[in-house]
């Protein structure tokens, strides 16, 4: 299964529910396009819910990093929600876990946006 993305609004936070595989090709480009669209619509608070992401490769990590820096450079904030054990391991191995603001509960993550 490739990636599926569904965007919903919780207050002024755009929550993107991501499921499937974020890998080079369709998966990573779909995530890139989604974040680009949100930024174009001036959504500055973005929460990526990765709890249903079964697999992510280095290209997918690259998209997360690019999304993080693009949103930040535009004055916005991107946070991560619900990492699976394998995705968490991957971010820890690559020393990115502490770069991202990671949350386990959606309500907590929403409140963390200033």
């Amino acid at each position: 299964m490739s990636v599926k993305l569904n965007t919903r609004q919780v207050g002024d936070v755009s929550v993107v529910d991501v499921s499937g595989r974020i890998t080079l090709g369709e998966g990573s480009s779909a995530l890139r396009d989604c974040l680009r669209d949100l930024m174009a619509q001036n959504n500055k608070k973005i929460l990526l819910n990765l709890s249903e992401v079964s697999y992510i490769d280095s290209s997918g990590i690259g998209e997360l990093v690019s999304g993080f820096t693009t949103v930040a450079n535009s004055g916005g904030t991107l946070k991560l929600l619900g990492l699976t054990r394998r995705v968490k391991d991957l971010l820890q191995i690559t020393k990115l876990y502490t770069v991202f603001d990671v949350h386990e509960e959606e309500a907590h993550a929403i409140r963390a946006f200033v």
Partner: protein
Amino acid sequence: MEPTLKTLLDQDYPSTLQSVDDAETVILQAAADLGFDEDEQHRIGMSVRECMVNAVVHGNRYNRNKVVHVGVTHSCEAGADDKFTVQIVDQGEGFEVQEVPDPLQENNLLSHSGRGLFLMGAFMDDVKVRKAVPVGTEVTLVKSVPPRN
């Protein structure tokens, strides 16, 4: 006991992203058949995926006239762990391993790319990169096979 070497895969793949999926699927099945648990299968599969992407995208640059050769073996030798070995060879211009930036260095942490080789090293027991003859890059990924009960 004489050392044995069993070939599990010996195939050329076209330089497409579909080949990345195809090679990963076949090698994951071979790893499962040898008794690797799900976490180890995941690590092997990801290493193969990263290596195949490098071969298709950076090595062969999607060139239809170039192939990626994939070989997989299971070797047994008395007094040593069995080895599961994946060899992936592209036909690209090659690169110098020592010139690949360290993705863990602070300046590179937020780079979009450059983590593939690092992840292979993190997930496999041994990774060797060398120039192939006459052209290209040969990457060898090795994992010890879990003992059978």
